C-alpha cells in the first residue's frame, strides 16, 4: 500500500503582523497578512518625499552656516518657505503612502468572497477617540489661530508682518494637507470579511489616522520657521505646549493612560 503526503502551504507571517495582532487580541488571518504586506510595499512611496524634505532642510541649514550675517538680518520669506517645506514634504509623503496603501487594500477587498461592514457611518471622533481629536484640534487649527493672533498683535513693521504671514501660511498648508489625509483615512472603504477582520480594519484605520495627525509636524514647522521671526517669549510657550501635545498623543496612543479609552467604542 502506498501513501502520499499532501503539504498544505502555510501563510508566512512576519513578526510585525503577529505582534500587531497579539497587541489587539486579534487572529492572524491570511487577509491580515496580505494587508500588512501591501502596507509594507506602499510605505516606499513616502521615501522620495522624505528625501526631498531632508534635502531642503539641508540647503536651508547650509545657507545659515555659509552666511552668518543672515541671523542678524532676520528671517526671509524664502527661508520660511524652505524651512516649512521639510515637514510639509514629510506629511505629503505620509498621505501619498496611505493613498497607495488604500488602493492596494481595495484590490485585496475585491478578491474577498464575502464583505462585511457596519450599518453606521464612520466619524472622525469615533476613529481617533476624543483625546486624540482634541490633540489634533489644538496642534493644527489651534496653532494656526495662535500664530495669526501673534502676527496681528506683535508684528511691528512690514518685513516682520510678511515673515509672520508666511509662517501662518505654512501652518495652514500643513493643516489642510493633514485634514485632507485624515478625511481620506476615515472615509476609505472597509476591508473585512467577518467580525474579527472588521475589528482589525477599525484598529488599522485608527492607527493610520493617529500617525498622520501626530503634532510633531506643526512643531517642526514652528521650530524651523519661527526661531528668528518671533521673540522668544512667544515662541517658547508655543513650543512647550506642542511638546506636551506630542507626549500626550504618544502616551495615549500606546495605551499607557489607564482609565482613558484609547479609541471610541464602535458598535459591533
Amino acid at each position, binding site marked *: 500500500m502506498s501513501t502520499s503526503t499532501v503539504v498544505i502551504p502555510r501563510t508566512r507571517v512576519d513578526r510585525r503582523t503577529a505582534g500587531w495582532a497579539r497587541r489587539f487580541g486579534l487572529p492572524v488571518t491570511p487577509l491580515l497578512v496580505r494587508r500588512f504586506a501591501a502596507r509594507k510595499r506602499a510605505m516606499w512611496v513616502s521615501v522620495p518625499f522624505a528625501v526631498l524634505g531632508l534635502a531642503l532642510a539641508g540647503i536651508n541649514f547650509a545657507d545659515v552656516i555659509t552666511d552668518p550675517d543672515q541671523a542678524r538680518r532676520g528671517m526671509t520669506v524664502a527661508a520660511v518657505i524652505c524651512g516649512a517645506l521639510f515637514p510639509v514634504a514629510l506629511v505629503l509623503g505620509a498621505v501619498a503612502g496611505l493613498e497607495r496603501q488604500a488602493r492596494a487594500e481595495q484590490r485585496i477587498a475585491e478578491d474577498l468572497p464575502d*464583505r*462585511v*461592514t457596519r*450599518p453606521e*457611518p464612520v466619524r472622525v471622533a469615533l476613529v481617533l477617540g476624543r483625546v486624540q481629536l482634541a490633540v489634533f484640534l489644538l496642534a493644527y487649527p489651534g496653532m494656526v489661530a495662535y500664530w495669526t493672533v501673534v502676527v496681528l498683535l506683535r508684528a511691528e513693521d512690514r518685513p516682520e508682518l510678511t515673515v509672520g504671514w508666511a509662517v501662518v501660511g505654512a501652518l495652514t498648508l500643513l493643516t489642510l494637507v493633514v485634514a485632507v489625509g485624515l478625511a481620506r483615512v476615515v472615509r476609505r*472603504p472597509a476591508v473585512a470579511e467577518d467580525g474579527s477582520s472588521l475589528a482589525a480594519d477599525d484598529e488599522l484605520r485608527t492607527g493610520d489616522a493617529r500617525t498622520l495627525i501626530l503634532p510633531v509636524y506643526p512643531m517642526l514647522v514652528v521650530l524651523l520657521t519661527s526661531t528668528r521671526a518671533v521673540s522668544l517669549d512667544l515662541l517658547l510657550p508655543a513650543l512647550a505646549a506642542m511638546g506636551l501635545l506630542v507626549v500626550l498623543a504618544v502616551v495615549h496612543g500606546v495605551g499607557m493612560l489607564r482609565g482613558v479609552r484609547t479609541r471610541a467604542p464602535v458598535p459591533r
Partner: protein
Amino acid sequence: MIRLDASSPVPPYDQVRSQLARQIGDGGLVAGTRLPTVRKLAADLGLAVNTVARAYRELEEAGLVETRGRAGTVVSAGGQVSRQRAQQAAQQYAGLVAQLGIDVDEAVRLVQAALAAGRGPAADPTSGR
C-alpha cells in the same frame, strides 16, 4: 454588521435591505440612527451605488428609514411602531384563540395560512418584491 455573500442566490440589494430591516426590527438600529451614505456602503461592500440606493429606496417605501436632506438617511420611528402593533395584534389573537378553545398547533397553522395567503408586495412592505 452587514454581510454580503457573493455566492448567495439572493440579489445583493435584497441582502442589504433584509439585513437592515432585521436590525431595525430587532432594535439593533434604533430610531434616529444615521445610516452610512449610499456611496460609503457601496464601497464597503464592493457593490454598485445603484444597488445600495435600491435597498435604501425600498426601506424608505416600507417606512423603516427616511431621508432627511443633508442629514442623510436615518432610521425612522415607523419600524419600531410597526413591530409594537404586530405584537399587540398577536396578543389579541392569542387571547381570542384561548377563549374559543382552539389548540396551539391549530392556532399557529391558521396564522401561517393567513400569512401565506396575504404574502405579497402590499401585505409585506419589507419584502420589496
